[in-house]
């Protein structure tokens, strides 16, 4: 973890600054590139420092030195967050956007109940988000500006036989983000809930059934568009909005009999 500061902005070279939790691969890595492309300076967090540093090196080579910086962090280590948040704001020279993208899916069979797996998913997908978005919300509400983005999932819209704790962790994140939005919109802060469908990342490589799979780059582009247009909730790709509208309205007596 370097202690160096990113390049300060000038009137003619102004930057927005984003903190990206969960950036070493998949959607996070693609978002890092997307944001750098659009003139953001980015602080990238994840467990795998080598991968983060490779992404930073690529960004700094392409967009000039001092545009990206990496921090090794395990979101299960919530005690570390307040100090690290302060440190990152210092090194970025401020903060305009925070994106919580950390998430895991630990597969369980339809008859399996594994508390350890479920607690871990809850910890990473939801409790880590609380730890990071709370200080960001407090920071932004004082400044009356800023943007909070949470990467949820279409899986958070219903509880299904295949992934109870994963569904619940994402649903909890969605509800938390909704509450943040209701608190912070009046204070000039934009809160975006992103619900991606299937994205071609390591997370779904073992999934037996997938549909409408898109690349992480396509997902990142969709997320960036929603950030710019200040949407509240966005399905990525948008077709999922229609599909989930149907799924959310399937009555329970049918849903109980479904196998997915």
């Amino acid at each position, binding site marked *: 973890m370097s202690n*160096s*500061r990113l390049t*300060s*902005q*000038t*009137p*003619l*070279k*102004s930057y927005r600054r984003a903190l990206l939790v969960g950036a070493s691969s998949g959607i996070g890595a693609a978002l890092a590139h997307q944001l750098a492309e659009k003139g953001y300076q980015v602080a990238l967090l994840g467990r795998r420092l080598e991968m983060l540093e490779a992404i930073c090196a690529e960004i700094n080579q392409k967009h000039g030195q001092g545009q990206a910086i990496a921090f090794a962090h395990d979101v299960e280590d919530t005690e570390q967050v*307040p*100090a690290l*948040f*302060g*440190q990152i*704001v*210092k*090194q*970025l*020279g*401020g*903060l305009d956007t925070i994106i919580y993208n950390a998430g895991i899916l630990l597969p369980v069979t339809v008859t399996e109940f594994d508390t350890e797996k479920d607690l871990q998913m809850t910890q990473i997908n939801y409790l880590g988000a609380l730890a990071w978005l709370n200080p960001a919300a*407090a*920071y932004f509400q*004082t*400044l009356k*500006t800023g943007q909070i983005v949470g990467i949820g999932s279409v899986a958070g819209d219903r509880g299904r036989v295949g992934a109870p704790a994963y569904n619940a962790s994402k649903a909890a994140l969605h509800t938390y983000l909704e509450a943040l939005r209701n608190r912070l919109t009046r204070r000039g802060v934009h809160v975006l809930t992103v619900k991606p469908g299937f994205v071609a990342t390591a997370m779904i490589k073992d999934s037996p059934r997938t549909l409408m799979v898109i690349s992480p780059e396509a997902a990142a582009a969709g997320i960036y568009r929603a950030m710019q247009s200040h949407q509240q909730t966005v399905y990525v790709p948008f077709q999922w909005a229609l599909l989930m509208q149907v799924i959310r309205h399937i009555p329970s007596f049918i849903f109980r009999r479904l196998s997915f």
Partner: protein
Amino acid sequence: MNPQSLPFERLKTLENFGHSLQAQSYLYRPTNVEQMNEVFKQAKQSGLTVALRGAGRSYNDAALNGGGIVMDIQDMNRIVEWNPETGLITCEPGVTLQKLWQHILPDGWWPPVVSGTMTTTLGGCLGMNIHGKNNFKMGTIGEQVVEFKALLPTGAEITCSPKLNGDLFHAMISGMGMLGVFTAITLQMKRVYSGMLNVHAWNVPNLESHIQALTENAPNNNYTVGWLDSTASGAGMGRGQLHTANYLPEGEDPNPKKTLQVAYQTLPATMFGVFPKSIIHYFMAPFMINPGVWLINTAKYIAGMREGHHPQSHAAFHFLLDYVPNWELAYGRSGLIQYQSFIPKETVREAWREILTLTQKRGLPSYLGVTKRHRPDKFLLSHAVDGFSLALDFKVTQGNRARLSALLQELDQIVLEAGGRFYFAKNSETSPETAKRYLGEETIERFKALKKRTDPNGLLESDLYRRVFGS
């Protein structure tokens, strides 16, 4: 060590003067020296840096510190001592030029060096070592300082004068607030016998006559300043208007008691007697495009063809920038930047011609050009040369940033080739390489060595300092 984080309630988004930059910082407004020292201690505990801020009138990032602490000294604004017999005044650093002149003018004194706006604080004025329209005659504000006291980030308090701690005296004045914070400043004021100045205004038709007029008039008048129509090209390139102003000798003002009153100096509240000045910037905004500015400049030049002599109050003559409140908002959402260069008299003709030609060729003419005559000074980070300055205002838009940035890099090269210098309160895009070239590596090393002495933990840092000197 786990740094202790500062309360978010302190967070504030601060801007530069031109509204072209924003930075989020933890803002502290101490009211005495102990509280100033407390800020340094907090900074050390939290692992953050501190930038000093006065009225925030720098056009660049001098008073900004993104992600760090900003110590705003505006609440330390007491006039500690004023002696109307000797003209010596001691002020806290947050005293503005406005408060200063309004305090002393009724006694028949005026600050010998003032900037184009009176809202600046003395702390900021010394940090940047400002100059006025009389730089050639009176030097910078630093040359009017008899003594100052300062608090160093180490907690030590020091007193400096040209003789006592002379090296720090000449480095802290001009030192961008990077060595320590002024706590009391003693200045010598200038005796005046009237609240009025005799102002003479006339047109100069081209670059040659413009430079010649500045050269001839600066030594012979109390104040000399030029306005340059930067939209004029060809034979009229460099045309503009010169203003000189002189104090009235003792006895010439029939009623000095009246003209020395603050009320007599006050800028009018309405323009043409009708429009409140607070709304004028809205009417200016539509003209802030290339053809509109050409129109205004041309009209101003034609209007100036009638040579004029007129009396004008000190405040009205000096504080043009305060004449239209929030004039800088007329430049729109992305604000403005100012590019000021100081060029030796030997190379100025060619350099100014190149600068004006290039701005016009790139389709980015400056919207306001101001010229002055200068002399060198002894301060460490000096912007002065035996020559001339040209200050150019540019409107920033969403679309022109990259082109403007490229243009300024080209202008930097012209200025450096001509042996010129820059000014840390103005230019926002000066690169470390450019700073090194005009200041010289030795000067920068000397400054850094002094900083190591006064601020061994490197607590004082602004966005400007990091940009030009590296952190």
